[in-house]
Structures are given as structure tokens and as C-alpha cells.
């Protein structure tokens, strides 16, 4: 009997508990921001952003360029220069300037009066130390030492002198000028080499020159990574700059879907995830107020595996390029959110180097008849009447096109490519392996066709040509030349470009023309569209966002963009009225 009553009591208790839980949690929705907790951040002074961190917290090691929490370089550590990809200008930052004293000696002037967050002054010694760190062969940026001809970095007075052997890789060096984090020697010298290259540095011990300091989030369980504005940033005094948000919070993404939900709910201010166009409405704004709405950030390429038949045939690749219905991709997959890429694949900021004559001669665009004609002329015929062309030896052609699973816009795009290639008689089926598998297969040439867009905005088209042409080809092509296009001539031209200073316009233009000709004649990769620098702004809490008509800065929290111009976005933001 008593057990029965006890049972009832437990039952009633459990029901009451569930009811209470629902009631209290609903209360939260109503309660709003009024209540304070030790960690609760004030909404009006906090800048929430998403789209950068796609796995649990990794580290704050600036050497781990693929892994560090966003802002590690840009908000905490800074670089000697910054680069504005929208204007192509270098911006002096921790360095006040620099110049080539000779063809192979570069002198960098270090800014005086810059203090690290622990109060110690930034010295040219710190800058030298930071560049010297890249000497370790396991350092991801080791190419500065390995392939530009850099021999020594020395401190001379208030300058740092870079001495090169032979013709320096100007283009690469320029890239590193704004991509090497300047770190405090007095802190970093306590770390072991292994820690510095591959380890996780202590987040509580970030000593940087930047405007923000670490607050929380350095744990694999954190949902967010929180930066707090610190007093005494050098640029406030030197340049009159002060970032508006007191807190900058990066939200870890689990999916675009979840991020969009939070953006719509007003929990995110800067949304750097991909979202369908219909999400842009009301108080949610973008850089352009009409199509394509977003800036382009990089070129999306279609990489054919040039070691496989028939993709080893430039004529076949050309036919494939003609068969792609780009407008349908822009329409269906992106609803007009992106622009078609130039046949050269070069980003709009490099358009001044595009040789229009070359493009007119060798360029391509969607044209089914041309595609069919090229196929026929090259000897690809449909010998068994199945609607698809066969190899020259009569064997079937059946290609597979892949992109990472879950990248919904790309998934749709490759479906379009498969469909429109079919119309030209090329049999292609789409596939969506997980990202890891795809990377592995791509590196080891176990694929037919893949999409990739690794190379972002940079100071130089050299990064694009290196991406396409770099030799030698290794067992695993982890970063470049996925298509395994082996052309010593093209690679030599690329290296020649590296060794040509941008200021030598005539020589530069000549090399660029040759590169474009080689590229378009061979089409080792097919440029498709400019993938967007996805950025939606919630104007409820912050205004004065970057825009085509206002401040031309990169509106993104993605890594490497802070030291381009994303930091300017923060210094130009204004709190919305009433907040």
C-alpha cells in the first residue's frame, strides 16, 4: 500500500518537476537581459559574430594558421603591415613603413611607442624574432625562408633589415609582410619549439599588441570565444582609432542552419555563414544592397584530375568548360548571391592585370554547341548511342564530380554541372563525400572532378598561379595543384612573376599575359564563380557597417581578414541608437 502511495508521489513529483522546468525556461524568454550574472555580457556593448570557427576551440597559437581562434591575429597579435584587398593598398601598422634599399635588401621601420598588453614595449628585436620563428621547417609559413631567397633578418637601430640572395620573391614577401604575427620575444622564448609549431599556447597568457584581450572560450567545450577591449591600444593614440564593441564574441558553428537561426533571433550581429538570399530582409543588411549582395572572397574552381583519361586532354577540359551552365548555378544554387568568375579565374581586384586580348582569344563561356563541336573535333564521339560520348578508344566515359557533404550551395552547383554536361554528352554524376575524405582523395588524385576555393584575397595573383601550377607534384598534394598539372614552363612563369616587383608594371604585365595565355590554353582548372565573402549584418545593435557606398572594409571575421581591413570594420561601427 505504502509503495503504491510512494509511487504516486514520485509520479506527481516528476510531473511537477517537468512543469516547473518548462515554466522557468519559458520565463527566461520573457525575462530578457535584465538579469546579471558573473559572465553575462551586456548585449548593447557586445559584438557577436559567426562563420569562422567550425570545430571546438583549437588554440591561440598564431603559427597554426588553420586552427587558431579568430582574432588571434588581428585582435590580439598584430602584423607589421595590413593590406586592403578592396583598394590594393598596404597599410603601415606595427611598421611605419618600409622600402627596398636595393633589389635584394628590404628595410622595415618599426613603430615606436607600441606596447604589448603586459606593458613591455615592442622592439625591432621582437619583429626579427617573429620572422625568425618561420625558419623551422615545420612552421606552416616556412615558405618565407624556403622559397623567397630570404637569407637573414637583422635589427639595425629601429629598423629590421631583410637580406635576400639573388632575386627576391617580391610577391611572396609582400604577402608575409601582412601575414606574420609579431609576437613578444620575452614570452614566446619560454615555449619549446614543438609547442610553438604545433602546440596550444596558453590563452590566459596572450601578450599581444592588439586592441583586444582574451576573456574566455579557450576550452573544447566552449560555445563561444570571447575577446574584451583593452585600454592602451597603441593605435588609439597614434591613429585615433578605437574599436566600438567592448566585447567581441565569436560563436562556434555547428551548422549554417543553427547560425542562421541565431542570427534571425538577433543573437548574432555579423553573420559570415552562407544563407539563402531570402534571409536578407528587414534589418538584415549586406555589403551591396543588390545582387550579388556580397563581396567575392575567392574563386571557386573546378579541378579536373589531369592524370586521368579523358581529363588529361586540354580539348576535353575546354569542352567541359563550355558545357557548364553558369547562369543556372548563379540562379538555382545562389539565387544571384555570387558573380560569374573571369575565365582567367583572377579576382576582380586583379582585373587590371587581365589581358583582354588573351581572354577574347582563349576564353570560354556556356555554349553547348561549342562544347559539342570541340568534343567532336577532338575525337570524342557517341559510338554506342547512349547519349554520352566515349573515349577516343571507344571506352565509356563516366566521371564523378564531388564536393563536401553538407555544403548545400556547392552540392546544388555540382548537380547543375552534371546536368548541363549531360546535355553536351559528357556523363558526370555528383557525389558528396565528407570533407575529410574529399581532402584525402583530392590530395592523392583519387578523384575525377572536385570543387575547391582555398585561395582567398591576397596582395598578389601569384598566390593563384602557385595554387594552379606549383611543382613538383608530391604523393599527397595537400595545398596546391590538386589537378596535378605538370608544366615546368608554367611553373617557371609563376616563379618569374614572384620575382617581379609589382612596381615594375611593364614586366609584370608581360608575365601576367603569358600566364593567362598558358592557363587558358591548357585550362588545368576551370574557374566558376567568385565565392562570396558571406556577410549579413544585424543593424539592431550596431550600425555604420561596411558597404559599397560607405566604408570599404572587409566585413568578415574569417581568419586573415582582420589584418586586411576587418579591424577597420570594428573601429567604424557605431552603437545603434536607443542601445
Amino acid at each position, binding site marked *: 500500500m505504502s509503495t503504491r502511495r510512494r509511487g504516486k508521489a514520485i509520479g506527481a513529483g*516528476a510531473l511537477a518537476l*517537468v512543469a516547473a*522546468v518548462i515554466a*522557468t*525556461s*519559458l520565463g*527566461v*524568454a520573457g*525575462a530578457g*537581459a535584465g*538579469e546579471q*550574472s*558573473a*559572465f553575462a555580457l551586456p548585449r548593447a556593448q*557586445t559584438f*557577436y559574430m559567426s562563420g569562422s570557427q*567550425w*570545430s*571546438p*576551440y*583549437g*588554440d591561440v597559437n598564431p603559427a597554426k*594558421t*588553420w*586552427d587558431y581562434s579568430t582574432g588571434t591575429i588581428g585582435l590580439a597579435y598584430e602584423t607589421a603591415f595590413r593590406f586592403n584587398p578592396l583598394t590594393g593598398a598596404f597599410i603601415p601598422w606595427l611598421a611605419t613603413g618600409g622600402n627596398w634599399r636595393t633589389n635584394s635588401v628590404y628595410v622595415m621601420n618599426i613603430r615606436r611607442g607600441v606596447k604589448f598588453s603586459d606593458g613591455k614595449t615592442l622592439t625591432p628585436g621582437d619583429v626579427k624574432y617573429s620572422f625568425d620563428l618561420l625558419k623551422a*621547417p615545420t612552421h*606552416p*609559413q*616556412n*615558405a618565407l625562408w*624556403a*622559397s623567397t631567397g630570404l637569407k637573414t633578418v637583422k635589427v639595425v637601430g629601429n629598423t629590421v633589415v631583410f637580406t635576400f640572395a639573388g632575386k627576391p620573391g617580391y610577391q611572396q614577401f609582400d604577402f608575409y609582410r601582412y601575414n606574420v604575427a609579431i609576437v613578444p620575444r620575452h614570452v614566446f622564448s619560454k615555449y619549446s619549439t614543438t609547442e610553438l609549431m*604545433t602546440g596550444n599556447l596558453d590563452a590566459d597568457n596572450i601578450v599581444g599588441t592588439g586592441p583586444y584581450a582574451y576573456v*574566455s572560450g579557450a576550452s*573544447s*567545450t*566552449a*560555445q563561444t570565444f570571447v575577446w574584451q577591449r583593452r585600454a592602451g591600444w597603441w593605435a588609439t593614440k597614434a591613429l585615433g582609432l578605437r574599436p566600438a564593441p567592448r566585447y567581441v*564574441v565569436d*560563436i562556434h558553428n*555547428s551548422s549554417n*542552419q*543553427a547560425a542562421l*537561426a*541565431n542570427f*534571425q*533571433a538577433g543573437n548574432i550581429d555579423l553573420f559570415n555563414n552562407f544563407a539563402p538570399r531570402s534571409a536578407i530582409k528587414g534589418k538584415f543588411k549586406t555589403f551591396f544592397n543588390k545582387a550579388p549582395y556580397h563581396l567575392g572572397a575567392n574563386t571557386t574552381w573546378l579541378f579536373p584530375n589531369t592524370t586521368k583519361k579523358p581529363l588529361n586532354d586540354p580539348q576535353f577540359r575546354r569542352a567541359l568548360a563550355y558545357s557548364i551552365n553558369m547562369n543556372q548555378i548563379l540562379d538555382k544554387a545562389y539565387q544571384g548571391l555570387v558573380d560569374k568568375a573571369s575565365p582567367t579565374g583572377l579576382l576582380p581586384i586583379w582585373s587590371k592585370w587581365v589581358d583582354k586580348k588573351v581572354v577574347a582569344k582563349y576564353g570560354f563561356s556556356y555554349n553547348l554547341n561549342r562544347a559539342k563541336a570541340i568534343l567532336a573535333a577532338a575525337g570524342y564521339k557517341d559510338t554506342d548511342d547512349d547519349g554520352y560520348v566515349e573515349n577516343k578508344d571507344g571506352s565509356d566515359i563516366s566521371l564523378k564530380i564531388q564536393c563536401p557533404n553538407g555544403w548545400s550551395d556547392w552540392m546544388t552547383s555540382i548537380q547543375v554541372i552534371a546536368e548541363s554536361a549531360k546535355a553536351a554528352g559528357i556523363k558526370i554524376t555528383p557525389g558528396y563525400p*565528407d*570533407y575529410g*575524405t574529399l*581532402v*584525402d582523395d*583530392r590530395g*592523392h588524385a583519387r578523384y575525377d572532378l572536385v570543387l575547391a576555393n582555398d585561395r582567398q584575397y591576397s596582395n598578389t595573383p601569384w598566390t593563384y598561379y602557385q595554387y594552379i601550377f*606549383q611543382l613538383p607534384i*608530391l604523393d*599527397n598534394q*595537400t*595545398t*596546391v595543384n590538386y589537378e596535378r598539372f605538370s608544366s615546368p614552363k608554367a611553373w617557371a612563369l609563376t616563379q618569374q612573376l614572384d620575382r617581379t616587383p609589382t612596381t615594375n608594371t611593364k614586366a609584370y604585365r608581360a608575365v601576367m599575359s603569358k600566364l593567362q595565355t598558358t592557363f587558358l590554353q591548357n585550362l588545368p582548372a576551370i574557374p566558376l564563380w567568385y565565392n562570396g565573402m558571406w556577410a549579413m549584418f544585424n543593424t539592431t545593435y550596431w550600425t555604420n557597417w561596411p558597404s559599397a557606398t560607405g566604408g570599404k572594409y572587409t566585413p568578415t571575421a574569417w581568419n586573415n581578414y582582420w589584418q586586411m581591413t576587418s579591424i577597420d570594420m570594428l573601429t567604424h561601427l557605431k552603437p545603434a541608437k536607443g542601445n
Partner: protein
Amino acid sequence: MWRYLFRKVSIYVVTFVVAVSIDWAIPRFMPGDPIQGLLSRMQAQPQASEELTSFYTEAFGFDVPLWKQYLNFWAALFQGDLGLSITNYPIPVTELIMGALPYTLALLVPAILLSFWAGNKVGALAARRKTLDNTVLPMSYVLTATPQMWLGIILAWVFASSLALFPVSGAYGFALQPEWSVEFARSFLHHWILPFSALFLVAFGGWAIGMRNLIIYELEADYSNYLASLGAPTRLVRKYAYRNALLPQITGLALALGAVVAGAIVVEIVFSYPGLGTLTLNAIENRDYFLIQGIFLFLITGVLIANLVIDIAYVFIDPRTRVGMQGGA
């Protein structure tokens, strides 16, 4: 009783050894090289690739013969060391799992226990009562046939996206950090309700049906008829039937754990809940072999332990396990 427990434990030990071995073998014999995957992720410059390969080969312990790797794996296992994550190198896998575990447990444990409790109660109530049976039963069938992720999506659509009563994703508000405070607790609960409900409702349907069918058997059993013949009130007859019907349900609970865990994985993904499910999907997408391996091992160990606990509890609940070793009655 001891023989019973011994048999159980030996099954679990064998299961564990087999599972650990499979687990160890997966990243080593499946196509694809974890270190090359890491290098790809790093976007390592080609010049550095050789250096990095040997560095990481050593760091992950791939530089010794296979049999030795296998033994090392066991040795490390007993020290709670599941290796290092690839995507989050050099964070230990254990740390990542431990970070996600509380969230998964916070969903799973209440969902399992409450659904078991409520499902059994409602199922027992419905059995042999026409109107209740005709409403509860069809509803339960719909629930048990519902894919959890779909229920999650529907709940998110209705209650979060349309009515804006609950958040769609995450485990707590972005303005907060995990801590023991009322505000955090409320935010946590607010985020917890929907994913919990998705898990709870589906499991609830299953238990209700199971109990409803089991208790009908028990109510038809001889001992129930005897009790009724001696004038025992329905209350007592149903109580006995319920208790006895509960026994196979408890067995079912142990076996259903695997399925519930699976449900939690998809539900977490729908709600971006930062538990093991989301971690698993991340690990798979990034081919983080050691993390996948660790989670898998963890899930198996968890399910095994839960099974063992239920087995031991069962000895106390069902007298027949204690005294019935002489064989069939």
C-alpha cells in the same frame, strides 16, 4: 546468482575486447591516412610536408610495428588516454569527449528515465481500457515510428522558429559561460527542452506500446486470474501485473540504450547541441580518426556499464535470477 553475473560479465568483457580491437583497427586499416589528412587540413606548404609527416607520425605513435601499436593502445586505454585529436591537435581526445559528455548526459539520462517511467505508466494505464487504449495506442505508434531528427525539426519549426518560444540551437545563451548560477540554469533549461522533448517523445511511444502489450499478457496470466478469483481489487491485480511486466521492460531498457544514444546523436545535430553527437559529426566530417575512435569506445563502454548496472539491479528486482538457477520451472 553468481553464475548468472559471471556469465554476464564475461560477455561484456568479450564484447569490450572485440569492440576495442575493432576500434583500434578502423583508422589503421580503413582507406585514407590520418596524417596526410591532417597535413591537408593544415594547408601545409609542400616544402614542409616531409618534415611534418615524420613529426606527426611520431606524435601519433605510428612509427612502431602494428602489434606494438595495439599493445600501446591498450596500455594507454587503461590510463584513460584515447590519444590526441587530429582536428584539434594536440588536445587529448578524452578532454574533448569529457567536454561534450555532460551535455549528452543531460539530454540522455532524463530522456531515458522519464520516458521509461511515463511510457510504462501510461501503457499500463491504457491496457484493457477501451477509450484510453484507442487513443494512447495509435499515438504511441505514431511516436515510435517517428524519426527523431524529424520530430526535432518539427519542434524547432513550430516552437522555436514560428512561435519563438524556445531557441533553435545551442545549449545556453551566447552571453553566458557555464557556471552555477540561476541565470545560466534557466538559459540551459530553455535550450534543453526541445531536444529533450524530441528524444523523450519517441522513446515514450515505444515504452508505452511495450508495456501495454506486456501487461495484457500479465493480466491474462494465471496468477492474475487467481487473485481476481479471490476477490482482490483490480488495483492489486494491476499492480502485480505491472511489476511483472516491468521486468522485460527493464531488460529492454538495457538493450534500447544503443538506440537511444543513436537518437541523441541526430537530435543533437538538429539542435546544434554541443554533445557527443555534434562532436561525432564534426569528427566524421574532418576524418578525425582518433576522436571517432574515442567516441565510439566511450559509447560502447557507457552502454556496457549501463547494461552491467541493469544486470546487477535485475538480480535484486527479479527473485528468479537469485533462486532460479536450477533451471526452467
